[in-house]
């Protein structure tokens, strides 16, 4: 069973640290709202290994971060967000 995890709060709240122990290799992480600030935290994202890391592009743009992400971050729009929800068997939201 593969899970799409979402985080919508900034790194200061430590949500990724809370949920990373239950993220498995077949899962994925989607960052939205203030969660997109994780795109500046390569040190926290890289240890997740090879799972896909998605980031909502309009939330990046709104915060001036669209050009500042690193290569592991895949920018997605709302259409892709909806499609990702259908591709994973569950969506687990951390906020």
């Amino acid at each position, binding site marked *: 069973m593969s899970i799409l995890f979402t985080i*919508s709060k900034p790194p200061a709240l430590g949500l990724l640290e809370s949920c990373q122990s239950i993220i498995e290799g077949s899962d994925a992480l989607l960052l*939205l*709202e203030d969660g997109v600030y994780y795109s500046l935290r390569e040190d926290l994202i890289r240890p997740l290994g090879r799972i896909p890391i998605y980031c909502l592009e309009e939330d990046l743009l709104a915060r001036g971060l669209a050009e500042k992400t690193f290569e592991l971050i895949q920018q997605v729009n*709302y259409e892709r*967000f*909806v499609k990702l*929800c*259908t591709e994973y068997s569950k*969506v687990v939201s951390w906020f």
Partner: protein
Amino acid sequence: MPRPDRGFCLSPAVKFAVVVYSSPASSQAAASAYQFVRTLLNEGHELYRLFFIADGVENANRLTVTPQDETNLPQQWHGLITKYKLDSVACVSSAIRRGILTPEEADRHNLDAHTLLDSTEIAGLGQLIDAAVNADRLVHFG
């Protein structure tokens, strides 16, 4: 001209349920939920139920007034719910403690105004459990 390959590029419709925990004024989550619901409907998916809970019930406050250059999210929800005839529910215990009342609840408590948009119903957590059981995907915005 080649015919489009029917059924090849179309993904099957999925039944979503969306839960909103935040008020329009307190975080971006309510606006994200609105964008998400609009997109899933545009993409041909189904919304089994929209459930407003905790501060999220403020999304169904019909007396919300926003500055002219800002979007009025409750009115946007109302438009979307009406257009697609969505099943929209506000948690009763979250709602009445925040003054979000149907005409019936206002009468029951001897209050002179009702505040819930008429496109949204008031119901208990059973409706959330029902959505979790019957929808293919339950997505939370908080």
